[in-house]
């Protein structure tokens, strides 16, 4: 139960308390990933990230396969996603992420409700599973006649040496549809992040650029790193359309394989989740000449800034004016809701440990209703997501990262088409236009707060005991351990059953949700009457 607030807790003390419980070696390792923010002077703060998790520590993290199949490829509806492995991996990633999709018609392809697996058995482990994989592709083709099939490797596949890429090539040739494989065995890398990378690289290699049709629209962009959880993507699309901006593709919320094939025809890449996809934006720029900017559609201020950034890029007064009109209209209900909710939420505290961008983006929504973020961190981010892109050259590439393929990309000979000339880019930059810029999470953090990367259960418990937050945001595994304390817990991966929370409409939903969670009656009833005053009844009995 939340007790009296102790905002003045020194984050250094919390760090000490956390580390005291670990074996010395573990404490030394974890120390690098726990960064107290002691003053407003935050230059030079470092957060160790994208490093191995200590075995046994009770981590939030999942695996490479989860990042590849579940996160990045999960939201694409018209590819048959075939898991090559024992049944579990396919089963657990079946419909569990709330990435919504909306096929254009009743007979349009949508395989997201299906789970496909080679269901490897012990004889496949002993004798190899390639034959079975090819037969499974054939059966999937015979029943469904899909336009594309992708294959996801699970741990044993890599260990027994099944060549999923060779199988994919062979079946692609045989069946005449696009078939490609992902080497996303669960043990690769140190978290889901490796899987994001492998998924995006594979799509870049096998799909991007296959369709040169140019959409008939004035302002065409791609939205990268938006996964349509709880319908976020739907209302982002709606808002952009209202402004007159068209999406060529979204990576990968509510997406189709055709959109990926065509994405190189867009004129700007807007990157939402920097962690999962910034490298794709880089590759699209190098190969096709599409510049990229970081955006966020979480929170009204970020949404406004992002819309203005997109409009400013096209340097068209008509668009700039339209965006301002939309902002003015959309902000009316948002401001009203803030006014209403702030009264009840002002001064309350939150902490959030999720993902590779949401622990940053969601801080704004809490601040808007007068709340304070006491502690935050990512589950699978890299140092640049904390410290900003300027640290990228300094990041040490360790053995775990070296195993993840980096594509070497060159200019496409025929299709490289710089959307802006060097002079135009320079002129925009001189006006303060932030191409390829991301400052990370650290600037968001207040003095007195604590940043923790890859938080463990023990660390979560210590934070709750010492900071006594009013609300905690993390994922499903953490949810009930936190709520047992009597502290409401909001899932920021899947949004529980809520959402959308993006753009203006979503912000209103989120404010209502947080208001409900903080002010729900239920948290007052944790004690029964006889627990609240046991001595009283005892006294009467004696008398």
């Amino acid at each position, binding site marked *: 139960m939340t007790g009296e607030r102790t905002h003045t807790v020194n984050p250094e003390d919390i760090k000490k308390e956390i580390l005291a*419980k*670990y*074996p010395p070696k*573990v404490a030394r390792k974890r120390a690098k990933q726990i960064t107290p923010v002691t003053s407003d002077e935050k230059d030079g703060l470092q957060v160790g990230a994208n490093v*191995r*998790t*200590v*075995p*046994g*520590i*009770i981590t939030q*993290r*999942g*695996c490479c*396969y*989860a990042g590849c199949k579940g996160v990045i490829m999960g939201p694409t509806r018209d590819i048959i996603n075939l898991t090559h*492995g*024992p*049944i*579990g991996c*396919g*089963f*657990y990633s*079946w*419909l*569990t992420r709330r990435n919504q999709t909306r096929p254009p018609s*009743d007979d349009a392809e949508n*395989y997201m*409700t*299906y*789970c496909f697996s*080679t*269901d490897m*058995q*012990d004889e*496949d*482990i002993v004798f190899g599973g390639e034959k*079975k994989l090819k*037969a*499974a592709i054939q*059966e999937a083709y015979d*029943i469904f006649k899909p336009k594309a099939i992708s294959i996801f490797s699970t*741990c*044993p596949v890599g*260990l*027994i040496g099944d060549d999923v890429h060779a199988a994919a090539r062979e079946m692609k040739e045989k069946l005449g549809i696009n078939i490609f494989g992902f080497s996303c065995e*669960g*043990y690769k890398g140190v978290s889901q992040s490796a899987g994001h990378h492998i998924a995006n690289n594979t799509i870049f290699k096998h799909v991007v650029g296959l369709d040169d049709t140019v959409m008939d629209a004035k302002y065409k962009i791609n939205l990268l790193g938006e996964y349509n959880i709880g319908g976020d993507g739907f209302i982002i699309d709606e808002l952009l359309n209202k402004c007159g901006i068209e999406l060529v593709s979204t990576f990968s919320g509510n997406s189709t394989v055709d959109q990926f094939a065509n994405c190189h025809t867009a004129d700007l890449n807007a990157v939402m989740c920097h962690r999962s996809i910034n490298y794709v934006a880089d590759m699209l720029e190098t190969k096709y000449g599409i510049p990229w900017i970081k955006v966020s559609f979480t929170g009204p201020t970020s949404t406004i800034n992002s819309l203005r950034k997109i409009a400013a890029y096209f340097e068209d007064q008509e668009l700039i004016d339209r965006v301002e009109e939309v902002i003015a209209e959309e902000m009316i209900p948002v401001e009203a809701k803030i006014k209403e909710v702030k009264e009840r939420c002002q001064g309350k505290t939150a902490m959030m440990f999720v993902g590779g961008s949401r622990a940053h983006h969601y801080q704004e929504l809490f601040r808007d209703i007068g709340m304070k973020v006491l502690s935050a961190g990512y589950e699978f981010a890299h140092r640049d997501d904390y410290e900003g892109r300027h640290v990228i050259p300094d990041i040490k590439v360790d*053995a*775990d990262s070296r195993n993840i393929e980096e594509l070497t990309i060159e200019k496409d000979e025929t299709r490289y088409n710089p959307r802006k000339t060097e002079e135009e880019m320079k002129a925009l930059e001189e006006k303060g236009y932030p191409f390829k810029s991301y400052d990370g999470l650290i600037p968001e953090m207040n003095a007195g707060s604590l940043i923790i990367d890859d938080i*463990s259960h*023990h660390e979560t418990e210590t934070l709750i005991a010492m900071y006594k937050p009013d609300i905690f945001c993390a*994922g499903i*595994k953490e949810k*009930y*351990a936190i709520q*047992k*304390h*009597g502290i409401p817990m909001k899932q920021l991966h899947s949004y529980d059953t809520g959402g959308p929370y993006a753009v203006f409409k979503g912000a209103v939903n989120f404010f209502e949700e947080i208001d409900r969670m903080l002010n729900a009656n239920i948290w007052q009833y*944790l004690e029964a009457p006889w627990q609240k005053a046991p001595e009283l009844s005892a006294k009467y009995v004696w008398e």
Partner: protein
Amino acid sequence: MLLRHTPKEIKERKVLAINPAKTCQPIGAMYAALGIHGCLPHSHGSQGCCAYHRSTLTRHYREPIMAATSSFTEGASVFGGQANLLQALLTMFTTYDPDIVAVHTTCLSETIGDDVNQIVKKAYKDGTIPKGKHVIHTSTPSYVGSHVTGFSNMVKSMAVQLAEKTGRANGKLNIVPGFVEPSDMVEIKRIAGMLGIDSILFPDTSGVLNGPLTGKFHMYPKGGVSIKALKSIGDSRGSIGLGEWASADAVRALDAQFKVPCQVQDLPIGLLATDRFVDALRIAAGVSVPDAVTQERGQLLDVISDMQPHLYGKKVAIAGDPDQVIALTEFLVTIGMKPVHIVTGTPGKAFIKRIKEITARFGDDINVKCPGDLFLLHQWIKNEPVDLLICNTYGKYIARDEDIPFVRHGFPILDRIGHSYIPTVGYKGGLHLLEKILGVLMDRTDRDAPEERFELVE
């Protein structure tokens, strides 16, 4: 349509699994381990396995699922996971102070051939495992069997690795409840208690995965079978394993190793299976059945008889775990319904034979597949529609597309509550199940009735 690509025409599939009716071994082992008091389950494999199992169990129980992982990286996969497991044991005992750690393997550690037994021995020898603490382990390769197999393996391991035979009889009866809900475990204990039987139920997830909200988090909740009780199961007068797939191995191993006489009964779901369970309890413990139990039986029978017009001849499709599906099918037949499509994802030769016996009165009119999947079940339903579908939550996609009344039963249930608090075993559980079945059937009648046939009294 949500499953818009499922064709009516059934093409034989030899290798491709679509919409499975099973998942993998380790999650069953994790669930079983949570039924030991003070236990921290440990997944020896990649992080994702543990994350997936914890997530699925959390969504099903809406309770904290605490478990740790060896966090394999590519290096560990090449050089073996010994260093990871030793580090994990040190971290867990130092940081989380469990009484016992229950290690299960994964397809990764099985494929590379990690010798967990040897690693655990080394950890005892090195003092990584503190004095008085325990580590048990079981082998759960994901590419064999299913989550039920994993449950069975962990239960067997907890029995044979913890039991001690002192030679002094403890007078107790061991009961292995199978891969059932914590509510079912409570009910099984209650029934044994009504007969005056002193039982040791293992594993026992009641009080662990159906805990109260009190404002305090307990890493190790009050429930679970104690290590002390588990140590004494070798001295028990007998064992009853409920469910051939989930419980038989454990009680047979106790019989073989400690000479504790065992018997395997069906899960006590429904009238007849509960009859057999109660009778087995009576005989094994040498007690008589009190009137209160007979009274509960009579109440269930009464409701079945009252509601015959709503049940008789109704066609049912069922998917689930073999122990559950066998008992459920028998119950449905008992109450007059006609199970026509029956699927389990877990392999096992005896399944089809048992189902055929139970449904013998319907001749060859029954579709049954083991191992089968929900895609096939859906196709069968398209070819021969049913009045009721009983399945885990994944069945809701079929139920919606085909507009079939739907009762959720089995694992996992990700979208409703109740299963962990309200049992479906025993006579009381049968009543609950019956209420659920009748509820959806009669709601459907009301929904579809023309106005003149919409009746107040049914």
